[in-house]
């Protein structure tokens, strides 16, 4: 009986700790008042920005240029993936958005040797 009580106590303790840790992930640790809730994450832009790309004379993509990137995105990481018609990645690269006046054109290089003929879509992400 004593062993059973000890096992049950251990299980209850573990369960409570797990629940507490999981709940804490949604809380603000630095706030003075502890509270739970949810908030919509707002990035530097919610727009689908337009991009162009450059090629060399062999028809391989040399860089992708993302147009009109808001200044608020300075310091964030902009990544691009070149995709074929099956949405398979043909190459990817990223860069840090620099500072500029107004909307920036951000160029991403280092995409490898990818024929522009095979690229049918760009997939982008901005993380800050």
């Amino acid at each position: 009986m004593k062993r059973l009580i000890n096992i049950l106590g251990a299980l209850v303790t573990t369960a409570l700790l797990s629940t507490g840790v999981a709940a804490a992930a949604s809380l603000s640790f630095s706030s003075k008042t502890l509270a739970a809730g949810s908030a919509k994450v707002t990035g530097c832009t919610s727009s689908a920005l337009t991009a162009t790309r450059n090629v060399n004379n062999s028809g391989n993509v040399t860089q992708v240029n993302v147009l009109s990137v808001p200044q608020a995105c300075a310091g964030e990481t902009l990544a691009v993936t070149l995709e074929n018609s099956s949405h398979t990645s043909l190459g990817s690269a990223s860069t840090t958005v620099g500072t500029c006046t107004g909307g920036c054109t951000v160029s991403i290089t280092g995409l490898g040797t990818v024929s522009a003929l095979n690229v049918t879509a760009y997939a982008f992400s901005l993380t800050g």
Partner: protein
Amino acid sequence: MRRFRLTPLRLSAAILIGSLAFAGVSYAASLGLTSKQLHTWSQALTKGTCSPAESDAEIRGGNPNRNFGNQSSEKVVNRSNVNDWYVLIGFDPASSPCSLPATAGADSAVLTLTITSASKNSVSAYPITSPWNAATVTWNTAPTFGSTPDFTFSGAGTDTFTVTAPLDTGIKSGGSFYGWMLVDTSGTNNATTTIAGNGSGQDPAIALHYEK
């Protein structure tokens, strides 16, 4: 049920568990709302092919104010840089039938030239860097052109040249692609190279694969 007794061992275990839990809570609190913000999107590309509108002209140093636009044959002549004849060939990917915007680009572009007669001289194609009009251009109103040729050729026959990068740059310039100036750059004086021109049925043409 027996009464629970707080022994030193149990007290130590409770303190240890409490400390571990506090560390876990601290770590968890550093995640969540302060993690990286993420915005993703995609852009689909439209692919197509077209042959940009073509025009050409001949300009002659010996007739500096006369226009020789859109002739069925155009001649490049070496006359010791005094009365040379140059040929201009231009393409307009921004107008019909291509009508490409400045956000488009060339995936591949191949220029075909038919040289109907040739000397042993070489002809170099320099990128034209200012506007010109085949119906009005003369030696004295000739556009400017670069100092490095995009391609060279010699001999008669039908030649093809890969011009993907110049076309891609030209498309992105928003209607400011001006074509090439053909100049005899080597060989003997009075040599003549004749190129099939506009309306010949063998007009200079670009096979363009584009994306937009």
